[in-house]
């Protein structure tokens, strides 16, 4: 082996070695932190439920049919202190403009009127689409009848954010899809 190829071999070897060590260290940190991050997410979801049905005392998950032995939570029954049903809370997802939008919402027991809507996660354009998480937009959903849950331009009563129709429509669709799904299971 001549000198220059020997040198190249050493350089590549060192980089590979260092990258391997780095990957191993990251893997060691990843496992425990990821467990904690998962717990945090669970915590955030519980808080979101309390947010969208503020009067609720506890939430009772309603599970769908088992798929591969795993039951998915379809929605939550919101109960007051005496165990009376005061509404439902649910999470919905829909593809927005730049990524998946996840929303949480509370609805009355008759599935007629929304109580409150909250954005759980989104990656829409900063300054445009990400305004779906602003109160100004979300306030429209408080007390909104499900029949009017469409954008104003699509025969509904939700005003889209200027320049962010796709994001606004994704929120509305995420809610409608889940509400239809809940209706079907009842």
């Amino acid at each position: 082996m001549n000198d220059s190829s020997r040198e190249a071999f050493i350089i590549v070897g060192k980089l590979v070695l260092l990258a391997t060590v780095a990957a191993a260290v990251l893997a060691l940190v990843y496992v425990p932190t990821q467990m904690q991050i998962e717990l945090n997410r669970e915590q955030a979801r519980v808080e979101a439920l309390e947010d969208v049905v503020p009067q609720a005392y506890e939430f009772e998950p309603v599970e769908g049919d088992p798929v591969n032995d795993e039951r998915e939570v379809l929605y939550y029954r919101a109960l007051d202190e005496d165990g009376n049903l005061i509404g439902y809370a649910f999470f919905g997802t829909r593809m927005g403009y730049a990524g998946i939008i996840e929303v949480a919402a509370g609805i009355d027991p008759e599935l007629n009127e929304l109580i409150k809507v909250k954005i759980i996660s989104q990656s829409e354009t900063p300054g445009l689409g990400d305004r779906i998480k602003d109160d100004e937009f979300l306030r429209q959903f408080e007390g909104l009848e499900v029949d009017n849950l469409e954008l104003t331009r699509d025969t509904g009563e939700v005003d889209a954010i200027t320049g962010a129709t796709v994001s606004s429509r994704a929120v509305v669709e995420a809610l409608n899809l889940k509400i239809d799904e809940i209706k079907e299971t009842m």
Partner: protein
Amino acid sequence: MNLWSEFLRGVTKDNPVFALLLGLCPTLAVTTSMENGIGMAAASMFVLLCANIIISSLKHHIPPTIRVPIFILVIATFVSIIGMVMEAFTPALHTALGVFVPLIVVNCMIIGRAEAYASKNPVSFSVADGLGIGTGFLLVLAAIGGIRELFGTGEIVLFGLTLIQMPIEASTFMIMPPGAFFTIAVLMALVNYRRAKLLERGG
């Protein structure tokens, strides 16, 4: 040259923001409150210190032709670690700092110290340098964050404790991006004025 003077040099003469003018992007972007400023500076300091230690101890084994990729690899590893740890244990701070945590990788302050200092000096001095530069960064970010928070919201709240409350009309301007430029400009003018005075006296 002793360790203490190397540490102090990072806070004063080689202060990353006011003397070297490095790391200005996070300095301007995340200093909307004192807490955010301190969180960002602490994360940067951790990365800077760890990168300095590793690079300084490996300096005889790093081929000059690939030193920059190696610096970036080392720095990126520590940034990923601190990113994951912050997301797990300080989720609110992680959300507030957002994209600026992964962007520590390209903070010139850190790669600058690796290239200019850690790759040429012993480990002990590199530790002092990392701590000094990190502390300098922390003080500046805390100061800018504190000033912006005080005038922008009328109070400084640090880790749930209200430090100062001022009966002024809060101007949102200060916590918006222009407030960052305004604050850093005023502070830098003061620092340079003082430096010029010292030079005049032949200091």
